[in-house]
């Protein structure tokens, strides 16, 4: 009897969601972040279980640990730097272990397509002593996500599944199956020696963790995740993830040890594989994680040059390492680059325009507003991590005696993620800096996800809405102002007052992201006779206004397709040459 096999194209992220669904996942939480965001969005369409955006990754993981304590299979998703935020519960959850299977997805970003660093989260598996699975295509992403739950329950331990941007955002042919029907009743576990990590209990649990890892090493040394693909024994390649695919393309005849479980490291399989080949090459993206383990076994191997410690690996880099091909010089196309920019009508733009006018020193973090670092605004001075701008502004203000206003900018979603504690610090330690919350009502950078201050949950259903004004007041901020960034005069007056006052103040610049509503507020018209080519409007850096290529003067031309009629340029123009009708 033959079964009908459905073939569909799924991205790595969609496949992870499908795998979790097939495993009977009963609770899922996370915080959006490229490249991980689509996992929960997909899962919410597959099943009616609670699928939630949490305020941050730590809250998400702790909630998932709770669901697991009650016996449910629980999934948490985040980008690589999100795991830094969630690291605290992760390390100790390795000690306690789990009841229902607990799987943590980390989306790494080699090449930093949309991240502030390219840390290699395989280190977390080694550091936290938590098994990690690393798929190399969408079908494996599905299988590994599903098997991760079984592994988690079998070995009483959270399991990390590591994806990368290329894997998460590549669609491959996948064969989905019907989900498991888990007949479970959920009841919170009472097991204090296991779940209350006082030192006496934790010492025992640490020993237990080491024993669990020893048992997991036996799984790692089977074919289930770390597979030998016999081939020409003159060349043996150890590789994982997308690097495996690139190496496979360059040397399809070679022998391969495909690593799908880098931790616990499969020492025995590696020894056996190394003994079977003449030449051993380790090919891996980012850090030398596998290579160091191989060398730690006393084995000699070849590996990539230091230049490949950064960025994505490619078929060319595989050819360079495996076949010693010279890197081909890339020919420049001699066309201008096209970096992302703040949209036409973006409500962040006028805030930065005014802050520049006030000669403010602006600290920031991650979001669309990070784009204020680029010309012509060039006003953002820092981007370290989520929420950092608030802390930085406080530290600067505590030591800086000059006249420049010290201003932190932070998005609404980011404020909820990790701005609040920094603001409490400012209140407590009597900061004189200013915090501007750029409240566009969404997590814009990652594609417009809802968060606690939007009044909608992940599925877009009504939810209690965090009142940011009341929150700021409740934690002791005495000066809280709300302003419409499209009203340039009011915005300037407010920011001027609040940045010159000697006490802490919060300004909430509130206007929905233009990608949320996509409606036109009016038609922008340009009166060339009235224009004196002062170029003030061009200093806004709006894509709807470009320097007229017919003239050398700083006269604007209107790109109507990018204009939403926000009218900010009309307010900047001193001669009424720009008008909204």
């Amino acid at each position, binding site marked *: 009897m033959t079964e009908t096999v459905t073939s569909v194209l799924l991205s790595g992220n969609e496949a992870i969601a499908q795998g979790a669904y097939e495993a009977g996942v009963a609770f899922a939480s996370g915080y959006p972040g490229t490249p991980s965001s689509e996992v929960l969005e997909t899962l919410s369409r597959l099943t009616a279980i609670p699928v939630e955006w949490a305020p941050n990754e730590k809250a998400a993981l702790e909630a998932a640990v709770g669901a697991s304590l009650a016996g449910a299979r629980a999934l948490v998703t985040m980008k690589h730097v999100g795991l830094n935020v969630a690291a605290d519960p992760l390390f100790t959850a390795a000690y306690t272990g789990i009841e229902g299977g607990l799987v943590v997805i980390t989306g790494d970003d080699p090449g930093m397509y949309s991240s502030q660093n390219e840390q290699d989260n395989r280190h977390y598996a080694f550091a936290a002593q938590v098994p990690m699975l690393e798929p190399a295509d969408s079908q494996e992403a599905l299988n590994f996500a599903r098997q991760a739950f079984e592994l988690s329950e079998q070995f009483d331990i959270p399991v990390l599944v590591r994806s990368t941007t290329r894997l998460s*955002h590549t*669609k491959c042919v996948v064969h989905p199956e019907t989900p498991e029907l888990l007949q479970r009743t959920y009841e919170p576990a009472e097991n204090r020696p296991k779940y209350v990590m006082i030192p006496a209990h934790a010492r025992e649990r640490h020993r237990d963790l080491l024993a669990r890892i020893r048992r997991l090493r036996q799984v790692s040394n089977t074919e289930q995740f770390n597979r030998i693909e016999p081939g020409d024994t003159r060349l043996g390649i150890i590789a994982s993830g997308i690097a495996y695919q*690139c190496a496979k*393309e360059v040397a399809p005849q070679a022998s391969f040890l495909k690593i799908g479980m880098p931790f616990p490291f499969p020492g025995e399989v590696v020894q056996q594989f190394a003994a079977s080949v003449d030449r051993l090459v380790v090919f891996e993206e980012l850090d030398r994680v596998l290579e160091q383990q191989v060398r730690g076994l006393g084995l000699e191997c070849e590996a990539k040059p230091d230049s490949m410690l950064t960025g994505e690996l490619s078929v*060319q880099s595989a050819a360079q390492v495996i076949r010693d091909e010279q890197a081909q010089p890339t*020919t420049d196309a001699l066309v*201008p680059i*096209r970096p992302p*920019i703040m949209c036409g009508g973006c409500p962040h733009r006028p805030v930065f325009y005014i802050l520049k006018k006030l000669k403010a020193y602006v600290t920031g973090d991650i979001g669309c507003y990070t784009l204020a670092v680029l010309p012509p605004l060039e006003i953002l001075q820092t981007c370290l991590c989520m929420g950092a701008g608030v802390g930085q502004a406080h530290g600067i203000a505590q030591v800086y005696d000059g006249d420049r206003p010290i201003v932190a900018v932070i998005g609404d979603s980011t404020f909820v993620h990790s701005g609040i504690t920094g603001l409490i610090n400012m209140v407590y330690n009597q900061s004189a800096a200013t915090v501007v919350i750029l409240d566009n009502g969404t997590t814009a950078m990652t*594609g417009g996800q809802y968060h606690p201050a939007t009044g909608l949950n992940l599925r877009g259903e009504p939810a209690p809405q965090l009142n940011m004004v009341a929150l700021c007041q409740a934690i002791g901020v005495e000066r809280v102002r709300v302003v419409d960034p499209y009203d340039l005069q009011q915005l300037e007056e407010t920011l001027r007052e609040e940045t010159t006052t000697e006490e802490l103040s919060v300004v909430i610049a509130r206007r929905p992201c233009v990608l949320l509503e996509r409606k036109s507020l009016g038609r922008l018209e340009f009166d060339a006779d009235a224009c004196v080519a002062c170029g003030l409007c061009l200093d806004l850096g709006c894509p709807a206004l470009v320097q007229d290529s017919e003239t050398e003067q700083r006269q604007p031309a209107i790109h109507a397709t990018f204009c939403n009629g926000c009218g900010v340029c009309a307010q900047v123009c001193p001669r009424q040459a720009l008008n909204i009708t």
Partner: protein
Amino acid sequence: MNSPESGSIILVGVGGQGVLTAAEIVAQACLQEGYDVKKSEVHGMAQRGGSVVSHVRYAHNGSVAAPLPRPGTVNLIVGFELIEAVRALSWLTPKGQAVVNDVLLAPPSANRAQVPSKQYCLAKVKKHTQRIVVVDGEELAQQIGNIRTINTAIVGAAAALLPISWHTWREAMEQSVPAGTAEINWQAFELGYAKAARV
């Protein structure tokens, strides 16, 4: 295509032009034609006016391994914008082909001395390809009466150069475009196809 058994396509354009939907149609068509396929894309910044790139690799007999091809091996560029088409040229094989939309969008961040002319871009693409099809996607979409079909008109033109059957394209279209828009997108596809078939 120098080999009907396998190939790779690069689709490039600017955020908001519908490049990713177009790539989805092409990848679905490859799948339904019985090819193994991998479609890779860089997005996240797509809505903010940045460059958008999607690679589609397909092969019979044995699977596609790496999501991205080697530079200098792509068979077809589908350029929704001329500067982006020029930027993608280093991916193309010397025997490659190109379908380009006859539009140039100057990057807002570029000063005007840096912005090449349409003629320059078209000449560059011509020089690097064995065959180039220039389509005025906006004009075709206007003929249909819906400006949002520019991308499917361009996919139609690309379809004339790909080893995929007519009815497969129709199915792929129905699966990839928003519900209720399949018919109007199909009309645009047919116009684009006819345009390329005439060249």
